[in-house]
């Protein structure tokens, strides 16, 4: 199945160079792939994955290892950031 992986701010350094100008790329993943699986596939440091959204909805840290991604979903990850 296909999902979209998005990584922002300094986490974009872990994306392939071709995806850095959009912060996003579509990836083929096996059924049953979890959020943590995909984050580890791209080598993002777990402790830097502060804000994790699936289709814009927040997933708390304790649910990320068990949350299975579904076909067409977008996983977006940010380090600790803030604005105002």
């Amino acid at each position: 199945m296909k999902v979209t992986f998005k990584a922002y701010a300094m986490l974009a350094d872990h994306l392939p160079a071709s995806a850095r100008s959009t912060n996003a790329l579509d990836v083929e993943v096996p059924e049953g792939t979890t959020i943590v699986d995909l984050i580890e596939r791209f080598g993002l440091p777990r402790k830097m994955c502060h804000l994790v959204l699936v289709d814009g909805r927040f997933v708390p840290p304790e649910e990320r290892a068990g949350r299975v991604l579904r076909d067409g979903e977008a996983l977006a990850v940010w380090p600790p950031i803030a604005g105002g």
Partner: protein
Amino acid sequence: MGWARKILRVDLTSGSVKSEPLNMEWAQQYLGQRGLATKYLVSEIDPKVDPLSAENKMIMATGPLTGTAASTGGRYSVITKGALTGAIACSNSGGFFGAELKMAGWDMVIFEGRSPKPVYLWIQDDRAELRDAAHLWGRTSWETEETIKRDHQDPQIRVASIGRAGENGVLFACVINDLHRAAGRSGVGAVMGSKNLKAVAVRGTVGVSGIRDFKAFMAATQAAKKVLADNAVTGQGLPKYGTQVLMNVINELGALPTRNARDVQFEGARKISAEAMHEKRPTDGKTHLVANAACFGCTIACGRVSQVDPGHWSVQNSPKYWGANGGLEYEAAWALGAADGIDDLEALQVANMICNEDGMDPITFGATVGAAMELYEIGALTKEQIGVEAPFGSAKALIEMAHMTAEGRGFGQELALGSARLCEKYGHPDLSMTVKKQEFPAYDPRGVQGMGLTYATSNRGACHLRSYTVASEVLGIPVKTDPHVTEGKPALVKAFQDATGAFDSSGTCIFTTFAWSLADLAPQLDAACEGGWTVEKLAELGERIWNLERQFNLAAGFTAKDDDLPKRLKTEPAKTGPAKGLVNQIDKMKPEYYEVRGWDAAGVPKQETLARLGL
């Protein structure tokens, strides 16, 4: 004592200046800056006064930590009755001006009356005098600062001034200090302009003395700095990416008000984000972002320094914009960008520079442009009326409207009134995205419910900086709450409002609160000031300030009906994203909020609430 214990009173009508002792009884109840200056203002003016009349007063106020070794201790605020809103106004600014004022030995300056001719106030330590500003009138903030420094042959003078917008009666004019920092909202610059006061220039060499317990103060401020450095947000995220990093976050959440809040997601968000500011441009191979920058004493350094592409059509013939300059923050990038459907980062930076140069609030300006664009799209305004084709997405229209508003020409004179008056005039009042006539900022209350209550109840009109529940509802600071639910939000909003009032009265920056709580602020204040400044006393201080501001607004004629959101946010559901189908449920949250506040059903503080707070 962190206080200088001295205020400067300037009667612009007679031209007199005099020193007065600070009311130390009030300082114990209202601390400084926002709280203490509000107490002075409400004690001295009629709440029903015309904001642009001589009877209104304007106060520039520091906090007890301003000018000290406390991190971010460079803040000052401008307190007055707002020109845009007619409500209490308190606009907070960083940079270096506030610290300089304090180091000249003054806690605050109260301006009253109206000068018969343009003047500026020159403060050199304990000496102060009004000087002729005929040669400064008609000039931008940038020219004004440069001229004053040259006239005095002193580059270390700090200047707060109005640009042409403040002179021309733009109702959302700012006070600009240090070229790029602004006391931005509610039209405090319009009040300054109405008084014929062009600038305040200050050189302070006295310093801040009399810290109550110097050893404890150094320990407390160092410990608090370590908290900021060790926190990933204040230690890494904000310095590297600035507030602009929120652009993609809020867009992903479906809470980015787009095209005058017709939409909640902007397809061009990535192009105007912090990430884009770090990328090399294809045109000249340079990044938009040059460096980050810090205000006085700040150990976070979230400020942006940017350099526009000199080949961009908007500045090709304007070399004054080519150098490194104050860069886009999140709110400005949103208001000038997504709110108008514009994804041209260079154009946004140019519009941002014009706002700084001539002193305009980019939030209200950008959102007003968005409203004008919608009026244009529905045929309520024409090209002939505006002077330019103005569909959503037109960067050319944005730049032209920025120039015409700042310069007070043509349709700019109508944009200068803000979107509430503009939309009313052209028969579509519901298209103004305002509360109390002030435009709401970059978080759509359909996707972040608490921000709806924040906007509706903000004493200075729609604003994110009175209770930034985004911290909790989006970023999980201090705890994560669900942005789509209303349960618990009234208490959350109250807690944020009260804590913010304490920070805004201290002289430190609200951005410290991504790492600090009142427990980090209290020891710093307590070491600096007499009075036993505990967490509990600070929370009560914030609540007292909130109710004092509320009382002023009620006396000025505001009622519970004004604690409301634009109809669009309550009746037109979000079209896309995770909040699809949602509207803001302000009517559900408001009664509970009044209850939590100790107010009656009409939003009036109950006697027991006032008595508890000593009001």
